[in-house]
């Protein structure tokens, strides 16, 4: 059944922030579908609303209008508590600067996910150890975040996201603070997991490393998403796509 349902379906979403006496509409009638195994990369100018879109898609914020469906479950009618549970069971995040907990070791960062999910500690530990080995972090498992390099921290952050066995993985500029080589490692991990673990992956990125690995590229502008047709080779090229963007979804 899960093969036939869209992992993530954002339908007609509107978000506006209060702006003095008026409001500022950031997302407007926005549609987005991400299927299992797909890696969708979203670009857009600073302030376009990319992070806002991720908070809505990741059930961190309720949209003013529209519906978000995760793993076949419509969320508009759910209580905060039910949304938290759905998030726990189906959604994982990767952040720009890893966002690790300062007092947990690499291994414990992953084990915590199991603990929150009520998993038996032995099971959680075994899975965490296996994941750390896969991410080439086996030797660093007892280090605190302060003792890890930036690239290692980001890999631990990705391991933590995988630990949740998510249906949908959401990453906000996961490579922005890494050099090109480390950025490539992170992108390979994300796109590999999308394929092999059938995770619906939604990445926001300014740089091209993620864009090159994308199965689909979208650009957020004017509150909605536009398909990127021209392959971008650098940031300047990505900017020039503005003129050829096309509305995606039901509008067409």
């Amino acid at each position, binding site marked *: 059944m899960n093969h036939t349902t869209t992992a993530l379906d954002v339908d007609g979403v509107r978000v506006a922030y209060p702006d003095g006496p008026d409001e500022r509409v950031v997302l407007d009638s926005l549609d987005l579908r991400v299927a299992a195994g797909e890696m969708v990369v979203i670009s857009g100018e600073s302030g376009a609303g990319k992070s806002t879109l991720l908070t809505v898609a990741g059930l*961190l914020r309720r949209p003013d209008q529209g519906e978000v469906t995760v793993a076949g479950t419509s969320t508009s009618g759910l209580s905060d508590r039910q949304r938290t549970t759905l998030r726990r069971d189906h959604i994982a995040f990767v952040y720009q600067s890893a*966002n690790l907990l300062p007092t947990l070791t690499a291994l414990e960062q992953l084990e915590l996910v199991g603990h929150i999910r009520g998993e038996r500690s032995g099971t959680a530990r075994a899975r965490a150890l296996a994941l750390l080995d896969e991410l080439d972090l086996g030797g660093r498992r007892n280090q605190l975040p302060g003792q890890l390099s930036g690239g290692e921290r980001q890999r631990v952050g990705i391991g933590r996201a995988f630990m949740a066995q998510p249906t949908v993985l959401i990453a906000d500029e996961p490579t922005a603070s890494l050099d090109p080589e480390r950025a490539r490692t992170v992108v390979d991990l994300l796109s590999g997991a999308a394929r092999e673990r059938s995770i619906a992956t939604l990445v926001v990125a300014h740089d091209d490393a993620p864009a090159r690995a994308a199965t689909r590229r979208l650009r957020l502008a004017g509150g909605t998403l536009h398909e990127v047709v021209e392959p971008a080779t650098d940031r300047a090229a990505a900017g020039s796509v503005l003129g050829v963007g096309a509305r995606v979804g039901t509008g067409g």
Partner: protein
Amino acid sequence: MFLALRDLRRGVRRFMLLGVVIALVALLSTVLSGLATGLVTDGISGLRALPLDRLVFQEGSDATFSRSILRPADLKRFQQVQGVKATPLGASFVNAAPVDGGPSLDLSMFGVAADSFLVERADARAALAGPPGLVLASELQDQGVKVGDRYTVGGSSEEYPVLGFTFAGTYGHTPIAFVSLSTWRQIQYSNPDDDRFSAIAVQGDSPELAAAAADTSTVVLTKTQAYAGSPGFTAETTTMTLIRGFLLVISALVIGAFFTVLTVQRTRQIGLLKAMGASNAYILRDGIGQMAVLVTLATGVGVAVGAALVAVLSRGPAPVELAPRAIATVTLALIGAGILGSLFAFRRITQVEPAIALGVEP
């Protein structure tokens, strides 16, 4: 408490300040309760040690022996109550001047019938049944008073020898001197055959006591209620209770303030946990659990040091006493106050928006 325990272990320095403050409050509370217990003992240990359950005072006397005057008819009525024993007791504060010169003694003089249940030891009974004299609290022996020393007591010109010493204790912070009831009447009323006395000591309980009290215009108090009549007792107890209450409130507030600051500092971390799918209950359990562990450890250390201090002090002249019950109460109350204090941050935790997890990193 997966996160809380590791956070405590690896962030010891961050929690040190609060830990030390709680430990000091616990130490202070323990020493104060040692002092409170010690003051009670110093004040009324004699009355507490008397083998009686209740005391009958004249109505309106506020459990004060000197304001209570009873007569044989009152005693007779109480002796008729089934299932209890009743015996007269004369009590007053007197000054005793040694015949041979030297420092005089302040005494709390208790006149008792030598053959009553109040006199338990055979040697004391024999001494009080014989010629008039004083049976003194043993602490006076440490001050150099000896058997055979002669004193003039109160205003009377009669001389009374010290007959012996007993673990009589104190009343109104004054060592007790036991005398026979007739000696007490001689000193108090200058007439050994006067029939007045201060109170009736009762052993046992009966619902009929209330009726007896009504018939005789008297009040029946339990022994503990009667402590209130001892000079200074109510003031001391109230002061101690007040100070200890304030300490509890202070520690609840300190812990509440600290935990609130900690919660504000952790806002992003809480947002992150919520984004990971942790429920409010999970996060509250973790945070309040952390405070509970910290408060328990710090209180344990503070109480242990405080108890050791009280044990050392109790060997000196200060009126302190190590009371396990009181210390257990202090410990539990402080831990309770700590958990209550940490609830101040309840709303701050539940109101954190998970969306901040995706906010810009500071």
